[in-house]
């Protein structure tokens, strides 16, 4: 698996798209800092970008890479390597090269603006951890969709729909149901609904850092416990890890049965 990971990674870090992605983040980082001069504020703006764009880019990259490397995958499958290694190797190749672009692309501008001397360093770190998680999750989800759909156009559409659903529509439905069922106790529902969407989950992790003052204004005891103690961070991190583990496990499972 490591050998396949190595070559997929080599391939990807040299691709034009990795550079585009890297440049995009460098640009965002510098532009934000140039406009704000304020690290904390730039971190908040960045959060909005990361939570939405990282999943989109992970999804598109994942699905494109899978479809484009189909024949190469066949070549690999004819080699004496385990099937699991082929797919997980490719998956990690994509996910890691994307994460690397993110880390370098955002890290450089912020470090050059004196991140380490600023108190925003923890928030920024959390942001990068989140971005990496989201990359791992959405690349894995894209691989899943691609493995199920032989038809590229279908697969691509499903992937984009999935992103649109999790990034926007889900929250719309969530908000509507909260407003409609406002008379009922909704603490548990809200927390569970948040856990079921990785984008919401990483948004909450950032909220816990940036907006704790507002979150603690809510009266519910369960919210209080969730937001007021370390429970929230620990639980969110655990579920995010699950969000990586489950799709990856499914890639493994699918890879054992799939025909080429």
């Amino acid at each position: 698996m490591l050998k396949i990971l190595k070559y997929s990674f080599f391939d990807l870090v040299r691709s034009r798209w990795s550079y585009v992605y890297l440049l995009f983040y460098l640009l965002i980082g510098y532009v934000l800092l140039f406009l704000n001069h304020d690290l904390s504020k730039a971190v908040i703006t960045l959060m909005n970008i990361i939570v939405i764009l990282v999943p989109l880019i992970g999804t598109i990259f994942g699905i494109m890479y899978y479809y484009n490397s189909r024949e190469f995958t066949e070549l690999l499958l004819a080699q004496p390597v385990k099937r699991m290694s082929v797919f997980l190797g490719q998956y990690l190749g994509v996910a890691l090269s994307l994460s690397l672009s993110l880390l370098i692309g955002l890290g450089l501008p912020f470090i050059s603006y004196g991140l380490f001397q600023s108190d925003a360093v923890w928030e920024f770190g959390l942001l990068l951890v989140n971005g990496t998680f989201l990359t791992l999750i959405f690349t894995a989800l894209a691989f899943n969709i691609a493995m199920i759909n032989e038809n590229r156009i279908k697969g691509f559409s499903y992937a984009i729909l999935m992103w649109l659903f999790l990034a926007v529509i889900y929250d719309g439905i969530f908000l509507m149901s909260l407003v409609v069922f406002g008379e009922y106790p909704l603490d548990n529902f809200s927390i569970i609904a948040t856990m079921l969407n990785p984008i919401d989950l990483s948004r909450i992790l950032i909220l816990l850092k940036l907006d704790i003052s507002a979150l603690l204004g809510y009266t519910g005891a369960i919210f209080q416990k969730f937001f007021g103690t370390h429970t929230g961070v620990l639980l969110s991190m655990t579920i995010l890890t699950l969000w990586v583990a489950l799709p990856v496990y499914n890639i493994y499972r699918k890879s054992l049965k799939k025909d080429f």
Partner: protein
Amino acid sequence: MIRIENLYKRFGRNEVLKGIDLQIESPGIYAVLGPNGSGKTTLIKSILGMVIPDKGEIFFKGNDISKSPDYRNDIDYLPQIANFPANLTVKEIFSMIKDLRGGQASDQELMAAFGLSPFMDKRLNTLSGGTKQKVNIVLSLMFNSKLIILDEPTTGLDPVALIRLKELLLQEKAAGKTILITTHIMQFVEEMADEIVFLLEGKIHFRGSVNGLKERTHTSNFEKAIAQTLTHHYA
């Protein structure tokens, strides 16, 4: 060397292999023939473990192939379409495959034979279709494996490279190897194949020599023999 027992495979509603029994022991060149959709590629991919059969077993050197991927160390495979990671160089793709398989590789001689040396540092996405196919052939033949499987090897080759390929196959056969080929070029089959395995609707319709098929259909022309087999069957 290969023993296939009662092999079934369906893709959705489409039943592709309906009980294949095939045994190949002695070295030589075997051509797997059949019309489109008869299951040639599926059969080959089943042997390679890329398609997982619904029913039946495949043994390679007496071992069930579903147990471990290691048996593929003894198989060289040339896929139908060559498409490699776009941003790796020719050199890197060679070292990658060597890396994955380990063992001795005779890539230098083969590269010289197909004139690939000038392309070693080029990225794979800059190569022409024919050059890619040459890379593909070298990749699949550079290990000294007992079994060689070639899926449509003649696609996109110029006449010089085609001659090289034929020489190479004969050389391998002389070295006591078993070679499995699918192709649509009947002239190539007639010239090269020791034995043909003719698939029709997921079953083995005929197995024997080129001459055997000619005799069976009472024709002296191989292409006509094939055509007659098909029309006879569908009539």
